[in-house]
């Protein structure tokens, strides 16, 4: 088990999410950057759905009460094991009594911490992903210990991996959304040429963008949405829905992010700039 000595900025337990409960109105949730999440588990030869910590901006201070192996992926967040720098994208052996600390991210937004065998927190509707109203807590809290399977095998054949995603890339590959055709050519052109800035209102539910689209579209009959759906609100604000977003919405759905774009956006934060790169639709 792991004791939380100090909380960081915002840390949650995440796995692949809660697919299949959307007909009860339950968000999918799961790791914001699924690419980095999956690398963290791969480095330890974990099951692909093993739960990890998702640490936003600055991770917590953790004390290990049992030995294990961990791996760090995603945003560059300097990490120190007993004050010694440890490398990301590489299995790290931790001993009983070791203390792991982080400083603030220098590139990206979310870092993943995988542990051998995965974290063993409560599983609700098939997932350990923390979400308000579904799991007991919506983030890790100091009073709770983080449990893991101490009998998991030592990682075999796990290798070092260099980071594959360029977090400085501003281009988000997107598909047309169901209401894209309602936009006039001027607005469509704005999406193709304009740069957009991420507003301070960005979290696991959604990212609002600063620049507005002038064309006003009527609301639609409440319809399904997905993580990565770009909504246009009546005042012209764009909201990109993220993993914890509600499963239906009444705003026109202009664009749909590709998987890679959604993972890339999860590594961006306030004031970062993005551009939409429209993929020609199939058929």
């Amino acid at each position, binding site marked *: 088990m792991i004791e939380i000595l100090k909380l960081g900025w915002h840390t949650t337990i995440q796995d692949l999410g809660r697919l299949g409960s959307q007909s009860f109105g339950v968000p999918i949730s799961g790791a914001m950057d699924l690419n980095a999440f999956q690398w963290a588990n791969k480095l330890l030869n974990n099951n692909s759905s093993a739960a990890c910590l998702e640490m936003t901006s600055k991770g917590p201070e953790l004390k290990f009460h049992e030995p294990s192996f961990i791996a760090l992926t995603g945003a560059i967040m300097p990490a120190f094991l007993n004050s010694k720098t440890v490398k990301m994208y590489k299995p790290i052996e931790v001993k009983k009594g070791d203390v792991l600390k982080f400083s603030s991210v220098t590139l990206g937004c979310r870092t993943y911490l995988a542990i051998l065998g995965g974290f063993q927190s409560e599983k609700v509707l098939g997932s350990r992903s923390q979400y308000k109203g579904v799991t007991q807590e919506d983030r890790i809290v100091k009073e709770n210990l983080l449990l893991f399977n101490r009998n998991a095998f030592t990682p075999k054949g796990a290798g070092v991996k260099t980071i594959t995603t360029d977090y400085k890339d501003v281009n988000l590959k997107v598909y047309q959304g169901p209401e894209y055709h309602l936009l006039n050519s001027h607005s469509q052109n704005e999406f193709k040429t304009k740069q957009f800035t991420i507003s301070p209102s960005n979290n696991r539910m959604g990212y609002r963008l600063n620049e507005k689209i002038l064309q006003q579209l009527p609301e639609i009959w409440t*319809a399904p949405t*997905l993580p990565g759906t770009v909504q246009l609100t009546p005042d012209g604000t764009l909201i990109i829905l993220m993993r914890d977003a509600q499963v239906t919405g009444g705003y026109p759905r202009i664009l749909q992010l590709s998987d890679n774009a959604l993972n890339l956006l999860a590594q961006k934060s306030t004031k970062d700039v993005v551009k939409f790169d429209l993929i020609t639709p199939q058929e």
Partner: protein
Amino acid sequence: MHPRVILLEWEQDPSPETLKELIHFKANILKYSMGVSQITQGYCSLLVQWKEDIINYSDTKKDLIALYSNLNINSTSAKTKHWTLPVCYEGEFALDLEHLSSELKLSKDTIIELHSKTIYTVCFIGFLPGFLYLDGLDSKLFFPRKKNPRLVIPKGAVAIGGKQTGIYPNESPGGWHIIGNTPISLFNTKNETPCFATSGDTLSFYAVDEAEYQKIRCIKNPKAYLTKVK
């Protein structure tokens, strides 16, 4: 759209017939289509999501069309249930009832009567875990949402917003006018299915006083207060 999803849309005009088609088509896709991971429902659409990217889009589309043309919405396969939900329309549970009463120029009792005599249809669940989109609110009770939403609406709040009425399954921000509260949980992950109602079911409300409300709240299995199978 995303290569893993297909959006199926009906005419943008919700009706009981459309709802029937949505429910039957959804059930049939889940039954007969391979590799579907989930289907999300709206008023006039279904979003079908596959586990992997759709490789042969035109074949998948043909299969769906064939499935749709064989749809029999009068089949008895889908059993719907009727639920009666106790609501306390009194005191601090009915935060906006007074205001609504003066704005709509209807007495509080009339509002309660109009609200509870209707049989509502559960169209689908969305917005929040366990939030039922209900159809059937009496047009005399239509009232625009608040311009400034409340930061906290209590769990169980029964409210009116625009042409809709709904129950807040959990504490959340919201812009609807609160007229009462139900002691029954709309979303509980400890139950076999986290939400008792499902798309196509019907629901009505009945008024209880505060003592009755507290009594029901303390009951471990309040389903007896709830079910009335059609």
